[in-house]
C-alpha cells in the first residue's frame, strides 16, 4: 500500500495559501487573546486554590456556587468533570482565585470551601467521624479497630486489623464515596467489623478527592522559569541547526517554530473556557517545538542532498522536489503521531486534556509550517539576495555564504 509515491506538487507556488492560512489563524488567536486580556493560566502559574469534590448525589452546581458566594468567597469557578469512562462520577472542581492574602493563610481558601460545603450539605452524627474525609487513613481505621476489637483477637490484633483496614480503604478508593456504611461488607470485612465501623463513622455527603493550593510567589517564579526554559531550548536548537546547515536555514526553522507556538497559544485563548496554560502545557509546547524542528530538518536534509545532485536547477525547483520526495514520510509520521495524541486527548483523562490539546494543534501546524512557511522563507530570502535561479550554498558550518548572480558551471 502506498499513498504518496510519485507526488509532483509545485509547493513554492502554493506557499501563499499557507501564509494566508497562518495569517488567519494568528489573527483570530490574537483577537481572542486581546479580548481575554492575556493568556489563561492554570493554577500553577497564577496561584489560587482548586478543590476536587465528589458527591453521593449529582450536585446542583448553581446552588453550590451561590452557597460559596454567601460565605464571602466571591468569585469561584465550578466545573463539572466529565469523565468519559466514568459518567456517573458526580465530581466537580471548585476553583478560587489567589486573593493575595499571602502564605500565612495558604489553605484559607480550602478550609472556607469545606466549611461552605459542610453548611450546604449538613450532616453528621454525634460522636462519629466522617468516613469519607481525606483525613481518615488506613492507620486511623486500624487503630480504631484495634481499640474496639470487634473480632476479639486480643493482643495479636495489630496486623489482622491493619489488613482489614487496607481492604476497607481500597474499597473506599474504588467506590470513591461511600453512601452507606453497610456497603463496607462488600470489601471483605467481616460483619462484626462492619458493625464496629458503623458505630464509629458515618458516610459524609461529600468527599475531597484532591486539592491544589499555590501561593503567589511560586506562581510568579514558575512563569519566569517557563519563559527561560523556552528561550534556552530555542537557543540550543538554533545553535544545533546553525552547525548542521547554513544560518538562513536556522533562522527559517526558528521562525516557523515561533509561528507554531503563537498559533497554538492563540487557539488556547480562543477556547479558554476549556483549556488553560499550565506547566505541563509548556512541556507540550516544547515538545512540539522539537517536533516541528524535526519536520523542517527532514526537508532541509533532503534539500542539501539534492543540492549536490541537481546543481543546475533553481533553488525553488530543488526545494519542490525535496518536499515531494519526503512527502510520504511527512504525512505518515505526522499522521501517526497525530493519531497517538488524539487518543491521548480523548482517553487521557481531564488532567492531560490541555496538554494533549496543545499537541494536537501543534502537530498539525508544525507539519505544514515546515513546507508551507520555513521552506518558502528560505527560497524567498535566496531570491531576495541572489536573484532568480541562483543557489544557496548549503554547507556544514563552513564560511561559504550566499553566492549572488550566475549559476555555477558543472565541472566536466
Amino acid at each position, binding site marked *: 500500500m502506498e499513498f504518496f509515491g510519485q507526488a509532483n506538487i509545485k509547493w513554492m507556488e502554493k506557499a501563499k495559501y499557507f501564509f494566508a492560512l497562518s495569517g488567519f489563524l494568528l489573527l483570530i488567536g490574537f483577537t481572542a487573546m486581546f479580548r481575554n486580556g492575556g493568556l489563561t493560566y492554570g493554577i500553577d502559574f497564577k496561584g489560587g486554590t482548586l478543590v476536587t469534590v465528589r458527591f453521593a448525589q449529582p450536585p446542583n452546581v448553581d446552588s453550590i456556587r451561590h452557597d460559596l458566594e454567601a460565605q464571602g468567597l466571591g468569585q469561584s469557578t465550578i466545573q463539572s468533570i466529565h469523565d468519559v469512562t466514568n459518567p456517573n462520577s458526580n465530581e466537580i472542581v471548585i476553583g478560587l482565585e489567589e486573593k493575595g492574602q499571602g502564605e500565612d493563610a495558604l489553605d484559607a481558601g480550602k478550609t472556607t470551601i469545606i466549611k461552605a460545603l459542610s453548611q450546604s450539605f449538613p450532616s453528621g452524627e454525634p460522636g462519629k467521624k466522617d468516613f469519607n474525609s481525606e*483525613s481518615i487513613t488506613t492507620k486511623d481505621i486500624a487503630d480504631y479497630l484495634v481499640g474496639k476489637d470487634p473480632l476479639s483477637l486480643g493482643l495479636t490484633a495489630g496486623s489482622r486489623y491493619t489488613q482489614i483496614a487496607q481492604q476497607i480503604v481500597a474499597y473506599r478508593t*474504588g467506590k470513591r464515596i461511600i453512601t452507606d456504611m453497610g456497603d463496607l461488607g462488600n470489601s471483605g470485612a467481616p460483619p462484626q467489623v462492619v458493625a464496629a465501623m458503623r458505630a464509629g463513622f458515618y458516610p459524609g455527603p461529600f468527599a475531597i478527592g484532591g486539592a491544589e*493550593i499555590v501561593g503567589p510567589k511560586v506562581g510568579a517564579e514558575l512563569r519566569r522559569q*517557563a519563559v527561560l*526554559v523556552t528561550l534556552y531550548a530555542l537557543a540550543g536548537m538554533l545553535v*544545533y541547526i546553525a552547525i548542521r546547515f547554513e544560518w538562513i536555514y536556522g533562522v527559517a526553522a526558528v521562525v516557523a517554530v515561533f509561528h507554531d507556538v503563537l498559533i497554538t497559544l492563540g487557539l488556547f485563548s480562543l477556547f479558554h473556557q476549556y483549556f488553560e496554560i499550565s506547566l505541563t502545557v509548556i512541556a507540550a509546547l516544547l515538545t512540539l517545538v522539537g517536533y516541528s524542528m524535526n519536520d523542517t530538518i527532514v526537508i532541509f536534509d533532503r534539500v542539501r542532498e539534492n543540492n549536490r545532485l541537481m546543481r543546475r536547477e533553481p533553488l525553488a525547483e530543488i526545494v519542490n522536489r525535496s518536499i515531494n520526495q519526503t512527502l510520504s*514520510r511527512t504525512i*505518515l509520521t505526522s499522521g501517526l503521531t*497525530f493519531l497517538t495524541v488524539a487518543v*491521548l486527548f480523548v482517553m487521557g483523562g481531564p488532567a492531560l486534556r490541555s496538554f494533549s490539546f496543545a499537541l494536537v494543534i501543534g502537530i498539525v501546524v508544525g507539519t505544514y509550517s515546515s513546507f508551507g512557511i520555513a521552506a518558502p522563507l528560505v527560497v524567498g530570502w535566496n531570491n531576495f539576495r541572489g536573484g532568480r535561479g541562483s543557489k544557496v550554498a548549503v554547507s556544514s558550518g563552513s564560511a561559504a555564504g550566499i553566492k549572488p548572480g550566475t549559476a555555477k558551471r558543472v565541472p566536466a
Partner: protein
Amino acid sequence: MNSNLRWKAIFIAVVVVLCIYGLVGLPDFPTSWATVKSNFGSRIRLGLDLQGGTHLIIQVQVNEAVRQEADQVVLGLARQLRDKNIASDQPLRVSDTQVKVSNLSQDRVSDFRTIQTENFPGWDISPAPGESNGYLLTMRQSLIASIVQTTMDKAVETIRRRVDQLGLTEPFVAPYGQGENEIIVEMPGEGDPVRARSVIQTGGQLELRLVQDPVPYPNEAAALQAHSGILPPGTELIPGKGSPSPTGTPTGESWYVVDRTPIVTGRDLRSAAPRRSTTRPPYWEVEFHLSTEAAARFGPWTEQNMGRPMATVLDHREELVATINGRIEDSGVIEGQFSQEEANDLALVLGSGALPASIKYLAESTVGPSLGADSIRHGIQASITSLVVVLIFMVVYYRSSGVNAVVALLLNLVILMAALAYFGAVLTLPGIAGVILTIGMGVDSNVLIFERIREELRGGKAPVSAVDLGFKRAFLTIIDTHVTTVVSAFFLFLFGTGPVKGFAISLTIGLIANLFTSVYVSRLIFDWHLGRAPRQAELSI
C-alpha cells in the same frame, strides 16, 4: 545463519532478558503471575499524581539565620570593645547584614580594625555614612552564602527527620527551585496535609540525658528484669540504635534506662560542627556550643557526673551514648572513633533538634488515592490504544516490514520501562504521556527508513542494496530529529517540577532506546530475512 548476525541476535536477546528481569524479576524471583504483578508494581515508582499523597513547597526564612549571626557579632564586638577599653557607643545591628559602631574614639581606630580582622574575618569595615566617627561592619557575600547554605542543609535534614515520623513509604525532602531557598516535601500516601504540616512545624526534640545503667538491654523485658520489675524513680526506658557487640556486628535495637529529665535540650544547643580530632588523628569528632544560660547548668552537672555515660536522645530515641570526660561549660567535644561521615551525621542530628529558621508554606497539593487510580487507568488505556492503532497501521501499510517495525517498537517500550525501573525514575501522568509520544515519534524512525528503502527499490536497486542504502541515508536524519527533541526534553528536565520532569525523562529515554531498536534491531531483522530469502525475491515493504 551468518555468524555476525548470530552474535548480534544473541546480544539483543541478552538485552531483552535483562530488561524483562529488571521489570518483573526483582525483588522476588517470580514463580507465579501474582509475584510478577507485585514485582512490577514495586519496581516502577509512581509519582504523587498516580499513587496519591501530599506535596508541600516550603520556603526557609534564611534571613533570620543571617540576622542571628549579626546579633552574635554585636554581642561579641561589645565584649571585645569593653575588654580592650575602647570608648564608643553600643554596637547596633542596623540591618540583617550590617552592624554599626558610632562615636568610636579616634585614637583607637587601629585597635578596632585589629579586633575586626582577628575576630570577625567574614566582615568588611567601612566608615558609616554621615558620621564622622562611626563605622559600619558589613557581612561579606561569602559569609552570607555559607550561612544560607548551612541553614538550608539543616532545614532539609530536620524536616526529613520529622517527616520520617509519619511512617510513610519513601518520603522525599530536597531543596527545590532556583535559589529562592525552597524545599519540596513529597509524602506519598499521606492524605492529610494538616497533619503533615503540624508534624513538620513541631516535633524534633533533642535532649541530653544521663544514662543510669551502663549497659543497654536487648528488649524491654530484660531491662525490667534487671531492676526486679520496677525502674528506679525518675527514669524511663527508651529504645535506641544498637551498638556494635564485641565481635563488631551491630545487635539491632537496644533499650536504655535514662533519666526522665534532660539536662540540656535542643533549644540550648547553639551549634554543632564536625572537625578533625586533635588527640586521635585519623578520626573525627564533633564540637558543640551551648547557650550561656545552659552552660551555667551544664558545667556543674558534668563535673558532678564525670565518667558516667550520657545519651543524646532525639524524639525519644537514643542516638548516641558518650562518656562525660570532663567539665563542660558552653563548648564541648564529643569524641569517638568517628569517620568524617559519621561525625557529619552526628553534627546534623545535634543541630537538627530545632529548625534553624522559621518556614513559610508556598504551595500544597493533595491527590486522593481514587484520583490517582483514575489517572493510572486513563494513562494505561490511552497507551494501549495508541500502541494498537500504530501497530495495526504499520502492518497494513508496510506488510512484513511492518512486523519488523512492530518488534522494534515493542522492544523500545520494554527497554524504556526497564530503564525507568533501573534508574528508580518516577513515573507520573505526563510521564505516561511521554511514553505515548515515544510511540508516535519513535515510529517515525522506522517510517524514515522504510520510505527510503521504497524509494531505492523504485529506483531499481536490488533489495539488499536498497535496505543498505535506506538505513545509511536515513541514519543522519534520524539522529538530527532525535537530537532536537532531546534538547527540548533536557531543558524541561532541568527546570521542571516533578510531573514535568517525569515527562522529560520518559521521552528522552524512549528516544534514545528508539535509536537502538529502530536502527540496530530493525537492521538485524532485515538482514536475517534477506539472508534466508532466495536471491531474486522481492522485499515485502
